[in-house]
């Protein structure tokens, strides 16, 4: 009893709890040991010491770390650090250049390619990269079965090499033979002019056959729509690239570290982190707060402010096309004169100035100027509202007409950073010649794409494309290779020309045909090419240079840092 007549509080209880907590913490800390190395976090990049950890914001987790089963930009960004293909790109361009293959020679018929491989290259697991490894990779793709063949899984092999071992009649690929340690011969069953260029895609990067076997890279379960990744694709990607995979904290970040046995030159980065930030505003804020060193697809509205604040904006050479699609299933739009009027009514320069990032080029056809077959000799439809009104009157719409204008919301694409602004801009321009746009906004995925590509219920619309590699068919063939609900455009003559061009094995011989096709398209106006927007990246002041690439072939080993 205490003096005030109350029982004494059991303060022993408190003591017991704290003691046991303390003991518990001690026991645990005995098991837990810091795994920190004494790296000090700096790397001697020649003259100046720089912080060797580099953090880049990704907009999502990669879909898969096995690039053969990926097709999205974030997967490819990571795989370009870990893997290398036989073919790379010339820095700053989309043109193929030697990478793991030092040289190659095509047979005259374009059906056989002899690759001479770089020697002394090792995969991250220590196994040799050689001709046998090359053939193992090609044979792996060719032997894809079941859901591995699905468009949502093995997209690029499926769409470029068409057939598999179980459907050889469609296959472009035939066989691969390791003629010596560093010589491989690949035979194609059909000519494929884009073959060498396509090998620069991460989907065709060289992966360690030993690691793929050990971690069962081909063991993909689930369904085509919801594949369950293999252990290899989540935790053991093994390539020859400058960075090795360390860890993937799903939803948080991916960590890579420098591959000490890399055959190429060592860069300044030892630890490379891709941090997942799905909100574009959060990415900008993280850059401003110093949490990240850079991010991709800067909103045009942010570039000026970021530049003023001392951040570095780096624009890629445009390898994109933004167009105003026209659906000819709509009565008014089936009239060529109306489509020409729309073309004349749009002031592309004003549109670019007001809504698209710096570095954007005006488009007069559906391929960027660096792609084979681009020609000045097309109908350019320079801005001329009077002519547009005349054409409308000739077509029987002297007072104009009203049309559905579809655009996506809440999305930012490399070719279309702010669809809402682009819509507002173009609809105002169309209103000036008497065409009233009836706004039809939809959520990007799946609503918008479904509506545009899946049925006839749309009018004029905004869409575009980013090229995967330097191939004309990868642009015009995708849009106008056959009749699609998007345009309801039907011109067998043009379709045939595109099929013919695709089948020509030699690039130079394709050129005149593609120039002709581009001219035809400009006269038929199945859609209006608007611009080749330049996607840009933002970095903090410690980044001196970043290897911008029109096809995103950017290896972080080439980044130059100043501190």
């Amino acid at each position, binding site marked *: 009893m205490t003096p005030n007549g109350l029982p004494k509080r059991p303060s022993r209880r408190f003591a017991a709890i704290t003691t046991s907590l303390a003991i518990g913490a001690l026991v645990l800390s005995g098991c837990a040991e810091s795994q920190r190395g004494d790296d000090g976090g700096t790397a001697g990049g020649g003259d100046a010491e720089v912080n060797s950890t580099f953090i880049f914001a990704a907009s999502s987790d990669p879909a898969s770390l096995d690039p053969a089963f990926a097709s999205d930009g974030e997967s490819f960004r990571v795989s370009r650090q870990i893997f290398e293909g036989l073919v790379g790109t010339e820095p700053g361009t989309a043109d193929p250049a030697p990478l793991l293959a030092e040289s190659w020679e095509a047979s005259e018929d374009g059906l056989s390619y002899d690759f001479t491989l770089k020697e002394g290259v090792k995969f991250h697991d220590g196994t040799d990269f050689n001709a046998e490894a090359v053939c193992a990779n090609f044979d792996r793709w060719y032997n894809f079965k079941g859901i591995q063949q699905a468009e949502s899984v093995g997209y690029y092999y499926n769409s470029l090499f068409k057939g598999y071992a179980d459907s050889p009649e469609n296959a472009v690929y035939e066989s691969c033979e390791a003629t010596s340690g560093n010589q491989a011969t690949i035979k194609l069953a059909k000519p494929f002019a884009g073959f060498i260029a396509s090998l620069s895609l991460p989907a065709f990067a060289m992966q360690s056959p030993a690691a793929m076997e050990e971690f069962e890279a081909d063991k993909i379960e689930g369904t085509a729509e*919801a594949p369950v990744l293999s252990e290899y694709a*989540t935790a053991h990607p093994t390539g020859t690239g400058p960075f090795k995979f360390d860890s993937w904290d799903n939803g948080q*970040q991916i960590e890579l570290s420098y591959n000490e046995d890399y055959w190429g030159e060592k860069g300044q980065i030892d*630890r490379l982190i891709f*941090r997942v930030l799905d909100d574009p505003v959060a990415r900008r804020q993280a850059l401003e707060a110093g949490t990240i060193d850079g991010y991709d697809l800067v909103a045009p509205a942010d570039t000026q402010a970021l530049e003023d604040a001392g951040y570095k904006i780096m624009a890629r050479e445009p390898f994109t096309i933004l167009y105003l699609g026209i659906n000819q299933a709509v009565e008014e739009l089936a009239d060529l004169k109306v489509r020409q009027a729309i073309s004349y009514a749009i002031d592309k320069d004003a549109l670019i100035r007001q809504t698209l990032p710096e570095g954007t080029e005006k488009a007069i056809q559906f391929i960027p100027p660096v792609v084979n077959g681009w020609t000045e000799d097309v109908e350019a439809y320079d801005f001329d509202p009077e002519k547009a009104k005349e054409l409308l009157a000739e077509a029987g719409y002297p007072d104009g007409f009203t049309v559905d204008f579809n655009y996506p919301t809440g999305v930012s694409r490399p070719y279309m950073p702010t669809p809402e602004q682009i819509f507002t801009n173009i609809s105002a321009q169309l209103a000036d010649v008497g065409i009233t746009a009836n706004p039809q906004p939809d959520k990007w995925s799946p609503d918008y794409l479904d509506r545009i590509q899946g049925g006839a219920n749309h009018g004029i619309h905004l869409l575009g494309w980013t090229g995967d590699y330097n191939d004309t068919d990868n642009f015009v063939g995708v849009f106008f290779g056959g009749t699609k609900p998007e345009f309801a455009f039907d011109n067998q003559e043009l379709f045939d020309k595109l099929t013919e061009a695709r089948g020509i094995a030699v690039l130079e011989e394709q050129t005149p045909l593609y120039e002709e096709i581009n001219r035809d398209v400009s006269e038929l106006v199945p859609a209006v090419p608007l611009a080749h927007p330049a996607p840009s990246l933002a970095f903090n002041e410690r980044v001196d240079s970043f290897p911008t690439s029109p096809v995103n072939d950017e290896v972080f080993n080439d980044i130059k840092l100043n501190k």
Partner: protein
Amino acid sequence: MLQVIGKRLALLVPTLLGLSVLLFLWVRNLPGGPATALLGDKATPEAVARINEAYGFNKPVIEQYMTYMGKLLTGDFGVSLRTGRPVLEEFATRFPATIELTAVALVFAIGLGIPLGYWAARNVGKWQDHFSVLLSLFGIVIPVFFLAFILKWVFAIQLPWFPTDGRQNPRIDATHVTDFYVLDGILTQEWDAAWDAFMHLVLPGIALGTIPLAIIVRITRASVLEVMNADYVRTARAKGLTAPLIRNRFILRNAMLPVTTTIGLQLGLLISGAVLTETVFAFNGIGRFLRDAIFNLDYPVLQGFIIFIALIYSLINLLVDVSYGFIDPRVRVQ
């Protein structure tokens, strides 16, 4: 006491069973069926058939439910459609993050809420009272996501005192043992990592803790006001007990009963608040993952996570009931 706990645990079984039936029926009744929900309206009949086959949607409902329950009981919650990883694994890797966040939010709400409520009650009608009431009103009125944005903009961007996102600065090469980052930092004695992880919790913790804070202030205030004038308090005063003793033993302890109930209920709500807070701060917990699952109709994740959350919610409220016994001896006797 043990009997009470046992009874309550037994009650959990029908609760969770009922929930599992609801969830099961919900998925089977998605517009167009689960396969169409998964594939979109454009799905080809072959794709729908393939999905139905793969997930067993073409079997009789009772059989489907038995398979589903059988899997649940063996801990097989299926695989996330979005990430292709097991739901249980996705939950387990993210749950520590949400526990950390919720703990900070709760410490903030209780640590500030009870003193503030008591202070308001003791100064009822004066400016201190008005101030507390206004503050709690503000806390209830302001939407969590908006508060999160404002906190982030002011204290992470304009004034760079706190980090903007995530759980840990990636520049700190931290070792993770338990996935409770603050604890990890302490255990491995990487003090910078522990401090950094804590700093990452401050703003989201405040954003998440504001609504419970406001409610705790109000309940504490009302409850203290009621107890303050109770007979036994007057008697204690008359006996000449010291003011701190009266406050701690007589007023606060008795006033804590409704507050404890409120805290228990708030804990469950914190998880729904975490969906918004974790999204704004790109905090990799179950809330953010749940949001992604909703957007992507990742129904195995939704099913699994809802069951886990319900289980946790029930257990927390059981704990709250048990804690009555410690606060109020009368409950123990009953």
